[in-house]
C-alpha cells in the first residue's frame, strides 16, 4: 500500500533509498551546544545531591565558549576565495561567513548570560541546572536558524529557540510578573510561528521548494505562475519575523515580556534572540528573496520608519528602567531594519555589525539592572538608580557607558553601528529614513540621559534613610560587565576587525540542485 502511495506521488519505488551524507564537522558548534545541554541534564539527574550554582555556570560558559571557538575555527575555510562557503546535510544548512559569525556571536552571548545569571540565580534561589540547560538549548535553536538553508530547518530552529524561552520567561514560577511574561510570550510567539509557517507554505506553493538556494534559483530563472501566492507568503514571513524581532506594529509584547522575565533572560532576549531573528530575516528576505526586493523594500521602509518613531517616543515616558530598556530595544530593532531595508551587501554588513555592537550593550545594560534590583527582581524604577554614582561609582560608570553607547556617542560601538546602517541607507538612496533615524536617536538620547542624570546628580539621601543594602556585585557578573564594556569601547575605537568580518559575512546563496 505504501509503495502504491509512493508510485502515485511519482516517487520511484525501486530506487534505493539514498541516505544523505551528514557532514558532522559542519555541525560541530550546534552539536557542542546540544550535547552539552543534554549531558548537563543527565548529570544533574544522576547525581544524588544538588550541585552548586558555580558548577553550572562554569559548564555553561565552557560549552558555549567551545561552540564559539568551533564556529570561528571554520572562518578561514568559508571565507577563503578558493574554497568558499559550502552546504551540508543534503543542502539543508549552509556554512558561510554569515552563519559562522552569527553562531559565534550567539555563543558569546550565552557565555555572558551564564556569567550574569550566576549571582542572580543564587540571590533568587532558582534552579541553576534547568536554567543552564534551557539557555544552551535555546541558543542551539538560534544556531540552527543561523545555519539553515531551508525554511523548514529555520522554522525548527526558531521553535527550539522559542519553546525554551517560553519556559525561561516564566522561570520565577512564584512571581506574578514572570508568569504573565511567559503567558504573553507564549501566546504571541505561537501566533507569530503560525504566521511564519503559513508564509513558508505559500512560498513553497509558489516556488516548489523550501530550500532557500532553490527558491532564489527559481526566482532568478522564471516568474512564479501564481505571483499572488509568493507575495502573500512574503507578507506572512515578514509578519512572523516582525513579531519575533519586535518591530512596530508587532511590538506590543516586547515591553511586558522583557519587564516580567527574569533579568538575565531579558538580556538574552535582547541580545541572542534578536541576533537569531535578524539573521533569519536577512537570510530569507534579503538574500534568498533578493529578486523580489522591489516588493519587500517599501514594506521594510514603513516598518523601519514606524519602529524608529514609536520606540524612542515610548521609551522617554517610562519610569521603570527595565521597561525603558525594552522600548529602547524596539528602537534598536528599527535601526537594524534600516540595514535590512537597504537591500544591499553593505546594508547586511551594517545590520550584522549593529547586532554585534548592540548585543553587548544590551547584555551590559540589563546586567546592571539585574544587579541593582532587589531580591524578587523588583525595584528597578528610576528612583532606585538615584545617586548610584555615590554608592557604586564603578557600576554607575559602566552603566553610563552602555547607555551612552546605545545613544550613539562617538568612541563607543553604538556610534559605529549607527554610522554603518545609516551609511548603507544613504548609499541605497533612503534619505528620508536616514534623516528620521538621526532625529529619533536624539529623542531616544533623552531616555538614556535621564537615567545617567539620576545616577550622577540624583540625591542619595532618600535611599540611605530607607536603609537599603549596598548593591552587591558578584565576581561572575563583574566579569561579564567587564567583557561587555571592553567590547563596547573597543568596537568604538578600533571597529575595523569586526567591520571587515561583517563585510565578508554576506549570506551565500547555494542551491543543492546545481
Amino acid at each position, binding site marked *: 500500500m505504501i509503495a502504491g502511495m509512493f508510485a502515485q506521488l511519482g516517487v520511484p519505488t525501486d530506487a534505493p533509498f539514498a541516505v544523505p551524507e551528514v557532514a558532522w564537522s559542519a555541525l560541530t558548534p550546534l552539536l557542542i551546544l546540544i550535547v552539552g545541554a543534554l549531558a548537563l541534564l543527565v548529570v544533574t539527574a544522576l547525581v544524588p545531591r544538588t550541585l552548586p550554582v558555580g558548577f553550572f555556570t562554569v559548564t555553561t560558559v565552557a560549552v558555549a565558549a567551545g561552540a564559539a571557538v568551533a564556529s570561528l575555527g571554520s572562518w578561514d575555510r568559508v571565507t577563503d576565495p578558493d574554497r568558499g562557503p559550502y552546504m551540508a546535510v543534503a543542502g539543508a544548512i549552509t556554512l558561510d561567513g554569515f552563519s559562522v559569525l552569527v553562531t559565534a556571536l550567539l555563543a558569546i552571548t550565552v557565555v555572558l548570560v551564564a556569567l550574569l545569571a550566576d549571582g542572580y540565580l543564587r540571590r533568587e534561589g532558582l534552579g541553576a541546572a534547568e536554567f543552564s540547560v534551557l539557555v544552551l538549548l535555546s541558543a542551539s535553536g538560534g544556531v540552527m536558524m543561523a545555519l539553515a538553508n531551508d525554511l523548514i530547518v529555520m522554522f525548527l530552529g526558531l521553535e527550539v529557540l522559542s519553546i525554551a524561552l517560553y519556559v525561561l520567561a516564566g522561570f520565577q514560577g512564584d512571581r506574578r510578573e514572570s508568569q504573565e511574561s511567559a503567558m504573553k510570550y*507564549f501566546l504571541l510567539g*505561537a501566533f507569530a510561528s503560525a504566521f511564519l509557517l503559513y508564509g513558508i507554505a505559500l512560498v513553497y506553493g509558489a516556488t*516548489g*521548494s523550501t530550500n532557500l538556494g532553490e527558491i532564489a534559483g527559481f526566482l532568478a530563472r522564471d516568474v512564479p505562475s501564481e505571483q499572488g501566492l509568493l507575495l502573500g507568503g512574503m507578507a506572512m514571513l515578514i509578519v512572523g519575523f516582525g513579531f519575533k524581532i519586535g518591530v512596530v506594529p508587532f511590538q506590543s509584547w516586547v515591553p511586558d515580556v522583557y519587564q516580567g522575565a527574569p533579568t538575565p533572560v531579558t538580556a538574552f532576549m535582547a541580545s541572542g534572540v534578536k541576533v537569531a531573528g535578524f539573521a533569519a530575516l536577512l537570510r530569507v528576505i534579503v538574500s534568498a528573496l533578493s529578486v523580489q526586493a522591489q516588493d519587500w523594500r517599501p514594506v521594510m521602509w514603513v516598518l523601519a520608519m514606524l519602529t524608529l518613531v514609536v520606540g524612542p517616543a515610548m521609551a522617554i515616558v517610562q519610569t521603570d528602567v527595565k521597561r525603558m530598556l525594552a522600548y529602547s530595544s524596539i528602537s534598536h530593532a528599527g535601526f537594524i531594519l534600516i540595514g535590512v531595508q537597504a537591500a544591499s551587501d553593505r546594508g547586511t554588513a551594517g545590520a550584522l555589525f549593529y547586532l554585534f555592537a548592540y548585543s553587548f550593550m544590551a547584555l551590559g545594560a540589563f546586567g546592571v539592572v539585574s544587579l541593582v534590583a532587589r531580591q524578587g527582581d523588583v525595584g528597578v524604577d528610576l528612583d532606585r538608580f538615584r545617586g548610584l554614582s555615590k554608592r557604586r561609582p564603578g557600576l554607575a560608570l559602566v552603566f553610563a557607558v552602555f547607555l551612552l553607547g546605545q545613544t550613539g556617542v562617538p568612541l563607543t560601538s553604538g556610534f559605529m553601528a549607527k554610522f554603518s546602517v545609516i551609511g548603507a541607507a544613504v548609499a541605497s538612496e533612503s534619505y528620508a529614513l536616514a534623516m528620521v533615524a538621526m532625529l529619533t536617536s536624539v529623542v531616544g538620547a533623552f531616555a538614556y540621559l535621564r537615567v545617567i542624570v539620576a545616577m550622577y546628580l540624583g540625591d542619595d539621601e532618600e535611599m540611605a534613610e530607607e536603609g537599603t543594602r549596598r548593591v552587591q556585585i558578584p565576581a561572575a557578573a563583574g566579569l561579564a560587565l567587564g567583557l561587555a564594556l571592553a567590547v563596547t569601547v573597543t568596537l568604538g575605537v578600533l571597529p575595523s576587525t569586526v567591520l571587515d568580518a561583517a563585510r565578508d559575512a554576506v549570506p551565500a546563496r547555494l542551491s543543492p540542485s546545481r
Partner: protein
Amino acid sequence: MSVDYSWYLFLGAALFTIGAYGLLIRRNPLVMFMCIELMLNAVNLTFVTFSRMLNDIGGQVVVFFVLVVAAAEVVVGLGILVSILRRRPSATVDDISALKG
C-alpha cells in the same frame, strides 16, 4: 470524483483565519491554545495540498515536523497555564495584567 486543489487551499485559508480571529477575541487560554492548533493544522492542510499539486513529497514531510512542534508547544503552554492556575482559582487572559505602561 476529484475536487479541485484550490478548494483545499481555500479551506486552509479559512481555517487559518478562524484560528487567528479566535486567538484575538477569545479570553480563555485553553481556547486560545486550540486556536493556535487550528492555525497550525490549517498550514498542514495547505502543505499537503501544495505537495500534491507540485508532485513533491517534501511538503508532506513538513507536516510531521509541524505536528511534533505543535505538540511540544502545547505542552509548554499548558505547563505555563498550570503554574498560573496554581496561584489563582481561575484565569482568563484579562486577569493576567500586572504589566502595563
